[in-house]
């Protein structure tokens, strides 16, 4: 979980929609956090349909990615944090993304918590393991 960015997939009326996002994960991997302005498409999509997916990977845009890169797909439910919880959580978020201070602290910026149901880890191109949370 040392990666900075991940791809968030939301959906609207059956149409998937993906966005590149800064994210943080809690130590126990049960929650992932992303920030977004409330005026974005992804924000409106995830508030109307909370089931989302996030792709985290370590690709380096070289041929070797095919055998070297590791990708994790997370699925879970997204929910916006209320203001007081957001305040409490901010230091942790900023410890990973200090340069996003202005962005995340803006009143129009929502901090989204994604409660992960499961992770799918892909290594060696096609080897897949599942990690189910809370079952």
């Amino acid at each position, binding site marked *: 979980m040392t990666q900075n960015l991940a791809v968030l997939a939301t959906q609207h009326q059956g149409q998937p929609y993906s966005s590149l996002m800064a994210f943080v994960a809690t130590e126990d991997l049960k929650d992932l956090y992303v920030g977004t302005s409330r005026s974005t498409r992804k924000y409106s999509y995830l508030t109307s349909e909370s089931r989302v997916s996030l792709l985290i990977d370590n690709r380096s845009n070289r*041929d*070797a990615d095919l*055998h070297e890169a590791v990708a994790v797909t997370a699925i879970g439910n997204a929910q916006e944090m209320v203001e007081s919880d957001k305040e409490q959580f901010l230091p942790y978020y900023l410890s990973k993304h200090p340069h996003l201070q202005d962005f995340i602290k803006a009143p129009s910026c929502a901090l989204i918590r994604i409660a992960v149901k499961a992770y799918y880890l*892909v290594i*060696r191109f*096609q*080897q*897949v393991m599942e990690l189910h949370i809370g079952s």
Partner: protein
Amino acid sequence: MKLFLTLDEVSEQYRLKVGGKGYALSVLARNNFNVPLTLCLTTEAYRQYVSATGLRERILLELNRKDFNDMRWEEIWDASLRIRNMFLTTDVPKHLRLNIRNSLAAYFDDKPVVVRSSSVGEDSAQASFAGLHESFVNVRGVDSILDHVRLVWASLWSDAALLYRQEIGLDVGKSLMGVIVQEIVEGDRSGVIFSTDPNNPSQLVIEAVHGLNQGLVDGLVEPDRWQIDRAGKRIVSHTPAQRESLVVSIDVGTRLESLPSELRDRAPLSDDEVIEICDLALMSEDLFGVPQDVEWTIRGGHLMVLQSRPITMIGEAQKEDKKRWYLSLRRSYENLQSLRKRIEEELIPGMERDVRQMAAQDLSLLSDRELVSEIRRRKGISDRWTTIYWEEYIPFAHGVRLFGQFYNDTVRPEDPYEFVRLLGATEMESVERNRLLESMAAILRERDDLRDRLIHGRYLEVGDKFLNLLDQFIVKFGDLSCPTTGVVQCNQTPEGLIRIVLEMASHPPTPGAFATEDLASLIDKYSHRFEGERQLLAMDLLDLARTSYRLRDDDNIKLARIDAQRIMALNEGKRRIENHDGRLPDAELVGEVAVGSYDPEVISPVPLPLEEVRAGYRIKPRQLRGQPAGPGVAKGSARVVMGSSDLLEFKHGEVLVCDAVDPNMTFVVPLASGIVERRGGMLIHGAIIAREYGIPCVTGVTDATKLIRSGDLITLDGFLGIVTIGSPKLP
């Protein structure tokens, strides 16, 4: 960086660009040794080729299918075969081709040459790649040289080379290969000299043959041997060979020929020449500072050095390593031919004789004491054949490999396993066995009444036709559940067998199960690719490979039959111990039975817990990677088979998941919708039998029997080599 360097141009700074062999030759040339005209193709050419064609990543993808340490030798051979085929089917890009062609044409034009590997890092005593990579003698014409350069590049990825680099800790991903192209010197006498005999450091040792060195290096021609005292440069001993043959150049390549009679009584070297070669080797040792293994040849009285490299010391520890032993499986065609003769004419009849002799004995007539010695005797017989199995039958399986390589080199098919189609449809015992099973099932499909009687255990009321087949089956193949993978119990009734036949009968016959391709036309097509002498060689190789392929199965079954006889004697002992009628059982018999029943190979029938549950997490496998070993996609409930009882539970349409498909397990194959095997390889039994039945198969799935449980829904993709566990629906 230049693509080619002449020996004059090679200096210390280019050592890593031309590889060990090329560098050593340049040092020799600078120091006035007589060496043939040589051009070094640098690692830059290799680098450009694998980069521009995308081969670099294809190779790494192939090698990273699983952890190298988890790969069996057969999987490494498979990976190596596939990589070799990538080189064979990937042309050198046009601009690179033009550059290389121009240099080659300027130096060699249409002269015959040797194309040799010169790999990077091999010029040190710790890492000598002697014999691991390929050389090609008597190659003619620029295009043919380029073709062979690709083969030399490919040999960087041979199974032997992969294992060796792994062992000495070189990064496989960073490997590069230089190549040297050398004018051929048609020596009339050739050989090798070790400047220090590894077995006796105070001496030098020379091996020499008439004709080309290839005969000696490939082990085809027995050499004369001299031991020479280093200090006094005095010949200590000369061991003449049975001089019978020599290797000569022919139009393309080389050929083994009978040695002319006038040369048979003549040693390849005079005493003076022996000393001259010693001087050469000692000078080379001086020059490089470590003992050298020098390849030389004499033409018209002139001594020439073909190559000089540090001597590889083979430690005792390495000899124990099984992977190393497998490398010794690279056998020559001649060697395999004589092995075939011995197996067909002596070993197989010998096994059959032993089984007949043991089966004819009435164990119940023996006293307890006699039974003890009979159990021991049978153990001895079983052990002896097991040793022969490892030492002679398994090396013979190399016949298939030899043919595979030959086929791919000449035909260059897209699918590196196309050659297997020419080997199929041989009358393997297991196919014959499955045919008998199918005939029994066919009777039951038409007669519900017979089926009912069988279900209710009324075996004797099912009619002669069925009973005859059943008898025929048991006489020929014995009790199915008895000799399966290390299981020491035998069932006394044919219940298990009948259960399988009933299961088969409750479903229509497997479509295409016994369909074979038109073998005759495949063979015809193959044979017409060659002409004259090459055609004869091609057909001989095919014949050898077909025998080798067939025996792979037969030997396993025959070995199991021998062990079944040992188990029968053990069971007689057990029976006596259990029914001792109040007498104390014979103590020695009790001991012998206990020892004989212990089998460390028996796999624990309890699968390991595969879902790790801790602190609110549950980890489980979703998709496992293996090798595609039988094309097709299958979906079904998994049946993990660890022992004979699991086999008897096998239901129609299940996916067989096992450690290794033993030939004695194949009777459930017609019921299976797919096969998943932990053991890897394209030519292992499971893969062979799956292809024969047209059943999708994935092999080499690490921990397959631990990660998959009986009853799991699995989908296997035999095209890609992927096994998916569970339904595709998300939780």
